[in-house]
């Protein structure tokens, strides 16, 4: 039977003085292990962080943060109010006040990833004891999903951090039954939503959990107070829009997000998340839960609803799907998997206890090594001419932006196939860049993006001096790629910059292929 989870326990306040903690050898060893795990997680999150430049989302979030920090080059190019709340961007802007750099921004994102490892340890320890906490943290430290996402300036890393703190507060509430933890959970849930508004769907998981586990259900007063605290925190989003007279922007985004057509099929997350988290983690998490199905308690209920309910809602209800959107389930999966490794009931004779321990250690080590290898491989992917949003930087984008900054006159305008490349060029190149594929129909476009009405006429009038073709956007929008190339031909485009990247072919040979080409056009 699982040890800690089934113990009928209550908790008493018994804090040890700090000096005692410092002299407790067991605690010091545990701290050393934790530091080592966080060090490993930090290494994977920080190693060679600037090898590839920003992707579109990273450019936008860092651009917003730089605008908040008062960067005069990026302020006119990146409006502060776009599709999401601004908690992470505001925090990032504090760091960018000393200067904007992509590596600096990624380090802030990575810091959230490293902090999440610590919270996962606390969560595992809280629910199942220190060994499970330690293994949970180790899994979280090396799982490719956590590593890949927290190496990017995305909102999902900070959202996962705040979501995990919320989960910890809920777990602690369930454990000690003190409403102060429920209030803390409400505040943390509010911050999670301020990191990224899609986190609001986690409320479904929380409601589901309390609906299923009656013994842990709060009293309605506690429940209402926690909800009010959460609403008060989230109200900052609305207050900021009101202060800036941008409530209309908020409405536009809400309508647009509600009406967007799906970008991936229902099975998208099943295809991309398990390999990203690690098949071993998935197998251990769900296998362990299934194995102990009859004896599972509220702990397992909390973790499973935290994983399964959002996964189902994001797959079936939310039309727009992204690789990184479910990162916040990784901590719960890590704890479930660690629980199986450390505590899974194995029938054995007393003299085989050592053997069982060795077996558990071997499974854990095998899992961690396999995850670490996969993560390492993901940090050094073979270059490709296609691109999955959220899976990493955009090869060649930064170098192209630097060229634009150095060679395109101030005030020059560029036209790309799609808005992703436009964002990257705007961030690194500091030049206004619009995209051909942005629909003139306001119902069909992100309100942040400015459409190019009659691009042919605009080119004829000299409003754009450069056209940018890139293979990544061309793969996604072949029609607009052809359109752009037709303009290149019509307006006597001359290739003035070509970004090459080495791409490995099936036969193993590597050759340099153009991924981004900038054409100078003549409007006469």
């Amino acid at each position, binding site marked *: 039977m699982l040890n800690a989870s089934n113990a009928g326990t209550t908790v008493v306040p*018994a804090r040890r003085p700090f000096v005692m903690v410092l002299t407790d050898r067991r605690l010091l060893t545990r701290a050393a292990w934790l530091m080592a795990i966080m060090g490993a997680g930090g290494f994977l999150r920080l190693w060679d962080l600037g090898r590839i430049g920003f992707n579109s989302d990273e450019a936008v979030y860092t651009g917003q943060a730089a605008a908040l920090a008062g960067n005069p080059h990026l302020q006119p190019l990146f409006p*502060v109010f776009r599709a999401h709340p601004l*908690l992470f961007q*505001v925090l990032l*802007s504090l760091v960018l006040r000393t200067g904007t750099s992509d590596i600096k921004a990624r380090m802030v994102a990575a810091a959230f990833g490293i902090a999440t490892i610590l919270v996962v340890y606390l969560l595992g320890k809280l629910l199942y004891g220190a060994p499970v906490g330690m293994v949970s943290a180790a899994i979280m430290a090396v799982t490719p999903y956590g590593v890949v996402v927290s190496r990017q300036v995305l909102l999902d890393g900070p959202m996962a951090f705040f979501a995990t703190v919320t989960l910890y507060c809920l777990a602690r509430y369930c454990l000690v039954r003190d409403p102060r933890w429920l*209030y803390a959970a409400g505040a943390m849930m509010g*911050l999670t939503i301020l990191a990224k508004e899609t986190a609001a769907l986690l409320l479904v998981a929380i409601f589901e959990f309390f609906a299923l586990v009656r013994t842990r259900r709060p009293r309605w007063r506690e429940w209402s107070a926690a909800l009010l605290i959460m609403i008060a925190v989230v109200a*900052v989003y609305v207050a900021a829009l009101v202060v800036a007279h941008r409530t209309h922007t908020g409405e536009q985004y809400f309508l647009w997000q509600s009406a967007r057509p799906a970008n991936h099929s229902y099975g998208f997350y099943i295809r991309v998340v398990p390999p990203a988290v690690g098949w071993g983690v998935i197998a251990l998490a769900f296998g362990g839960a299934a194995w102990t199905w009859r004896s599972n308690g509220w702990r397992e209920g909390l973790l499973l609803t935290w994983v399964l309910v959002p996964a189902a809602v994001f797959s079936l209800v939310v039309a727009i799907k992204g690789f990184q959107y479910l990162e916040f389930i990784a901590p719960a999966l890590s704890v479930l998997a660690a629980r199986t490794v450390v505590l899974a009931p194995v029938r054995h004779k007393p003299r085989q206890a050592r053997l069982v321990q060795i077996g558990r250690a071997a499974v854990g080590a095998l899992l961690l090594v396999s995850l670490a290898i996969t993560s390492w491989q993901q940090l050094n992917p073979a270059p490709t001419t296609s691109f999955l949003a959220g899976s990493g930087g955009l090869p060649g984008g930064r170098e192209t932006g630097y060229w634009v900054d150095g060679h395109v*006159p101030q005030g020059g305008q560029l036209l790309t196939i799609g808005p992703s490349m436009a964002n990257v060029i705007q961030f690194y190149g500091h030049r206004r860049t619009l995209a051909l594929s942005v629909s003139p129909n306001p119902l069909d476009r992100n309100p942040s993006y400015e459409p190019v009405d009659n691009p042919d006429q605009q080119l004829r009038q000299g409003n754009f001096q450069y056209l940018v073709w890139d293979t990544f956007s061309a793969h996604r929008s072949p029609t607009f790629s052809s359109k752009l190339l037709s303009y290149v031909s019509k307006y006597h485009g001359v290739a003035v910059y070509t970004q090459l990247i080495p791409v490995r072919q099936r036969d193993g040979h590597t050759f340099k292929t153009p991924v981004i080409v900038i054409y100078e056009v003549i409007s006469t």
Partner: protein
Amino acid sequence: MKGYRIIVDLALMAGLVIWPQAAIASPAPGSVTPIQHLVVLMQSGHSFDNYFGTYPGADGITQGVCLRPELSKTSTNGCVQPFHLGNEPVQDLEHSLSVWSRQYDNGLMDGTVAAYRALGLGTNTPMGYYDSHDLPYYWGVAQNYVLFDHFFSSAPVGTRLNRFWWVAGRSTPGNLESLPKGGYGNIPTIFDRLEAAGVSWKFYVQGYHPNVTFRSNTRGKNSEQTAWVPLVDFPRFVDQRELNSHIVDMSQYYTDLNSGTLPAVAFMTSAQSNESPPGNIQAGQQLVRQLTTSLVMSRYWRSSAFMWTYDDWGGWYDQMKPPQGYGFRVPALLMSPYAKKGQVNHTVLDYTSILRFTEYNWRLAPLASRDYRSNNLLSAFDFTAGPRPAQLIGQAAVLPEANVAPAVSILYLLAMVVGIALALWAWLTTRSPDEVIKK
């Protein structure tokens, strides 16, 4: 005074003979200033106040001005104030010498409305003006480069007359607008000076018709080219193949920029895009934008200056009394990496100032007394610093967002503090789960 002028003119004529030979002896002199390429475009038919009368910092329309419909009456009843024209269509405004004289009103500059009333025209259009909404590119250039607000047309009226001043630094023979039957003979032009000095030059013409010259029918199809392009009124520039080859279609300008063959001095004139009423000012603005953008993006930008101005006032109101013998003020702008940023230049200038700068920059002898005495363009440049980085001016001014960052940041940080405070409160004041006691 007259005797002095004759002496100066004689000396200048002597210079015309002697200087070119001296220049040929020292081939292709370099420029005195870092400006190695000067491009000058002549547009048509607008006064300074019509385009920049409301430009901040410029000597523009006087506050509260209201022009009487009849100069003989002192009453201001029915007076007309300058007004924003916007997209209103405009007709071709009469801009003859009689209209000019009435508008001038012995230097009082208050006769614009009366001038048209006297002709039996009830229009108030000449009192209209454009602003940044109508001319975003020109105003953008003014904000980033140099706007001249004391730039006068060299002659009171006449496209042909003014353009003659532009290339020859003097008036036409007999000060006539009409073209002499045999052309302008041997009167020297700035291009003769350049040719003699071995300095490369070209005259770019929008929609150039090589067969339309002073010898063709000056009232027939495309005959306006003889007024817009003074060089086709000189026998030597028509007959001598070498000289004639310098007059080319404007499309060649773009080719020259790309192929590296932009001459040191380029004069250019538009045709269908010359902005003269009732023409579309946007077409002119678009042309100027294309010409300047191409230059800014070319290899020549770091050593170039692009200037454009207008060959007369077009009948529009202007509040400033011109110097004796000059016409009303016309818009004039200068773009160059050495141009002072956002300067409104108050130096008194005219078309011959362009000649003066050209002569100074390439060490050429003056053509006549006016260009010899006129003010140089040098006050618009700053050669002490290096060239400014290339900058393109957008069609529409980008308005900065209101700075909401501090308020937004404070709100979010407040939320963060509240969240952390609640979590800490719970952490510090509730029971620890570390010590577990079985019931």
